[in-house]
């Protein structure tokens, strides 16, 4: 049967995006809004002792200034998806971090609100803050087993002592901020006790439940609308404090309130990727078989939160090794609470592991791909379960052939092109296959068009198109006649768009609803006496090319099949609860908790996507300027729904890796515990001229043990191997092993 799943399909929302008609949250028209400007703290630790509003209130157009003194009891802090409690904002006088929301200026215009914001005087009782790992006053603790776990398999310390070859090294990754180009915006309006929130969100049901809980109102009274999201990368997944306060402001004014937070405020009112440190110890035989793997990580978080990413839950599972030990410590500092950012666990932890594997290969005088081949795991080394497809070495082999790895002279510093030292590096990529419970409604009309409703999120991933393709495929229609509604809590509940799970979650739910439609049409067509399909087995009928069709080709036009059941539309609502997910998953979803089934927490298989990433860098012999001239990623990430958008996602992930390895770092002022480069010219991300050849290979990987449609997800895996691949290539070019990111000219002088 021909299938649309896997056919290149231009995005159905493409026209809206290129004409400026795609409606992002702050684009939505609201009548006569007041404008908000956030007041944020200038200290990182201490208390607010008073405000002086005289000058600010004198600015014409100012309506009100809200602080903990006026509204502190009107909202509670949002619940975090991970890590327990978080910092507070306007609940009381406490300051937990620099840039914390401490007040909101409301005015008729943005210009007036901003001016008044700069005229507010705040008095503090400041204490000395601890900025990061080594600061006096930072508190270290071992992370408990709970959300995340440490592993102790075999006797890693003993095996290290007995190993023929050992490698020990320390690695570090910096603070990074997502910096989507869309700012953190919130618009709130009340009508008859019902609240509407327009806010870019990766989880509208989560935001709804959270804000309802914060304000103490039933979730049914809150509607969240987020039709287009201008980039998220994890930053718009959890509820942040701003939303409930803007709702409080709108209620007090009796007027819609619109907030467009500034770029620098975005660094402190939402989350970020915290800095990490790693110690890796590897033991191996002389012929390159791993005998011991120890990966210890340390991560920064805020004072009250225990948020951490524990990426050694992944690094422990990549290679066959009988003795494994992992541990994570967290360090509490006077900082905002970190959160998910593209491949949260893998990006830092795989940099460490895949750098160490490259170092071990060098020590063993083995090709780094060959070392990985000798340690390719047949089953999950932690659980012993089979993998739901593991094409890691196929990715290396096909990628290496295409990239020209065989031409690489293994000796570091040996390849040169004029003034440029050339280095080739590679690394493995891996990302867990996740899926969450999701509902969807499908309506099929007699004229052969359909509508799909699901409260999913298109954060640039092409989710609108994924939904259209899935429905078109199952209903026997063209994707262009499917109308898709998403990003609104009035639609059937959908989970958090994160963890590379959204395509699998949405597509499997939409397919389930389409199957109900097909089943109803088929039953009616076969049980009634009239019609060409009367008496057939309904299970064998398919919807193909706008017809209900039997295996022998006898077919009935869709319009006849639909009209038999209804003069209007045939509609089905399905809830898809993945096998292995808790039975109350839909209830959790409505309560705002993401009911995700993680690929490494399943009892049947270990579900992962795999990839091999290759990089060519050029380091200028004299200036040490570093350029990435070529990148290639070969991925086996399950069935691909839309190769066009998938290609863009992989490519974007790989460029994110380039960015993380060579450019991105949020610099901290250690004495003030303050982010210094909190703007887009000093927080470096790649521009067009930084990016050269990017090649993506998608290997077949069809394994329905992952989920019924065999979709593994690919939004994150593109970044995972890039940091190490670039560091390994820089080493190959120069002989210099850089173990702390980002790698900069000064590291190579």
């Amino acid at each position, binding site marked *: 049967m021909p299938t649309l799943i896997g056919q290149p399909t231009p995005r159905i929302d493409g026209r*809206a995006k*290129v004409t400026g008609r795609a*409606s*992002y949250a702050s684009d939505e028209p609201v009548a006569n809004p007041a404008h908000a400007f956030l007041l944020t703290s200038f200290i990182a630790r201490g208390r607010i002792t008073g405000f002086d509003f005289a000058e600010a209130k004198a600015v014409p157009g100012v309506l009100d200034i809200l602080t903990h003194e006026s509204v502190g009891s009107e909202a509670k802090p949002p619940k975090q998806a991970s890590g327990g409690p978080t910092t507070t904002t306007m609940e009381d006088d406490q300051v937990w971090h620099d840039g914390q929301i401490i007040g909101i200026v409301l005015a008729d215009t943005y210009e007036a609100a901003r001016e008044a914001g700069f005229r507010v005087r705040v008095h503090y009782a400041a204490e000395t803050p601890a900025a990061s790992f080594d600061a006096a006053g930072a508190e270290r603790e071992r992370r408990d087993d709970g959300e995340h776990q440490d592993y102790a398999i075999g006797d890693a310390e003993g095996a290290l002592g007995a190993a023929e070859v050992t490698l020990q090294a320390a690695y570090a990754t910096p603070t990074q901020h997502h910096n*989507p180009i869309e700012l953190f915006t919130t618009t709130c309006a009340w009508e008859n006790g019902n609240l509407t929130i327009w806010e870019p969100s990766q989880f509208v049901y989560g935001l709804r439940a959270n804000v309802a809980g914060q304000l103490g109102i039933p979730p049914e009274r809150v509607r969240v609308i987020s039709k287009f*999201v201008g980039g998220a990368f994890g930053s718009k997944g959890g509820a942040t404090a701003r939303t409930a306060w803007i709702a409080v402001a709108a209620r007090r004014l009796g007027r819609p309130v619109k907030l467009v937070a500034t770029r620098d405020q975005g660094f402190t009112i939402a989350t970020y990727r915290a800095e990490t440190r790693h110690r890796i110890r590897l033991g191996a035989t002389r012929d390159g078989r791993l005998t011991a793997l120890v990966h210890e990580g340390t991560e920064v978080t805020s004072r009250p939160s225990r948020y951490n990413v524990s990426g050694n839950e992944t690094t422990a599972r990549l290679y066959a090794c009988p003795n494994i030990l992992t541990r994570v410590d967290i360090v509490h500092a006077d900082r905002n609470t970190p959160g998910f950012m593209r491949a949260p666990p893998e990006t830092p932890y795989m940099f460490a592991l895949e750098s160490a594997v490259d170092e071990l290969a060098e020590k063993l005088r083995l090709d780094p791909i060959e070392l990985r081949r000798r340690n390719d795991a047949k089953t999950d080394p932690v659980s012993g379960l089979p993998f739901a497809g593991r094409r890691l070495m196929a990715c290396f082999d096909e990628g290496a052939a295409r990239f020209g790895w065989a031409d690489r002279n293994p000796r570091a510093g040996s390849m040169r092109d004029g003034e440029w030292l050339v280095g080739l590096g590679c690394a493995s990529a891996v990302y867990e296959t996740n899926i969450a419970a999701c509902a969807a409604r499908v309506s099929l009309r007699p004229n052969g068009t359909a509508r799909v409703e699901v409260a999913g999120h298109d954060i640039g*991933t092409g989710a609108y198109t994924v939904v259209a393709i899935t429905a078109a495929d199952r209903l026997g229609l063209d994707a262009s006649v499917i109308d898709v509604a998403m990003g609104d809590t009035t639609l059937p509940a959908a989970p958090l768009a994160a963890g590379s799970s959204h395509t699998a979650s949405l597509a499997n739910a939409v397919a389930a609803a389409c199957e109900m439609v097909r089943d109803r049409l088929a039953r009616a067509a076969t049980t009634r006496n009239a019609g060409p399909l009367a008496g057939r087995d309904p299970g064998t009928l398919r919807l193909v090319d706008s017809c209900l069709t039997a295996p022998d080709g006898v077919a009935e036009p869709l319009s006849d099949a639909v009209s038999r059941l209804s003069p209007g539309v045939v509609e089905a609502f399905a809830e898809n609860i993945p096998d292995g997910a808790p039975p109350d998953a839909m209830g959790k979803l409505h309560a705002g908790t993401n009911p995700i089934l993680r690929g490494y927490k399943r009892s049947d298989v270990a579900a992962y996507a795999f990839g091999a990433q290759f990089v060519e860098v050029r380091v200028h012999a004299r200036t040490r300027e570093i350029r990435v001239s070529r990148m290639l990623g070969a991925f086996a990430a399950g069935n691909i729904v839309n190769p066009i958008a998938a290609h*863009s996602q992989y490519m974007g992930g790989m460029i994110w890796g380039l960015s993380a390895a060579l450019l991105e770092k949020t610099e901290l002022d250690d004495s003030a515990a303050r982010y210094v480069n909190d703007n887009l010219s000093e927080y470096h991300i790649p521009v067009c001229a930084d990016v050269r050849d990017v090649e993506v290979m998608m290997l077949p990987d069809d394994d329905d043990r992952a989920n019924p449609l065999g979709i593994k997800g690919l939004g994150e895996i593109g970044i995972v191997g890039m940091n190490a691949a670039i560091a390994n290539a820089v080493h190959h070019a120069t002989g210099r092993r850089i173990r702390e990111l980002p790698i900069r000219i000064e590291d190579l002088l």
Partner: protein
Amino acid sequence: MHTTMQTILRINGREARLDHDPRITLLDALRERLGLTGTKKGCDQGQCGACTVLIDGRRVLSCFSLVAAVEGEVTTIEGLSGEDGPLHPMQQAFLDRDAYQCGYCTPGQIMSAIACVTEGHAGSPDEIREYMSGNLCRCAAYPKIVEAVQQAAPHMRGETA
């Protein structure tokens, strides 16, 4: 100091008479006063290019332009094509090449890309990369943006020849 002033803007072939706060930027006027929300705010500091519009054909950062100081005909993304009509060749090229993901930087990229071609800076991929480097794309659609400019450039030159 809370004076209001009046400016007549020419935008997408129409005139808009605006009573406004003297501090308002062209970007905020487009978005908050004129309902032209296709032009995006990504930084408000002249650093990202999301707010790029054309004034008399030249690319201008609207977050860095005060309404009171605008002279000339402003073209925004909404001015390039009608509701259902054919797309401008640059819009079509972005669509054909999937030269976006979230789409938030896209209106600014398209306006910049049009100017990149009319300035005569679309001669080679390297030149396009250089002259499109004032528009950040966090989704990192850059290689496809370069392809889109290459696709649209000959069509645009054909139109004007």
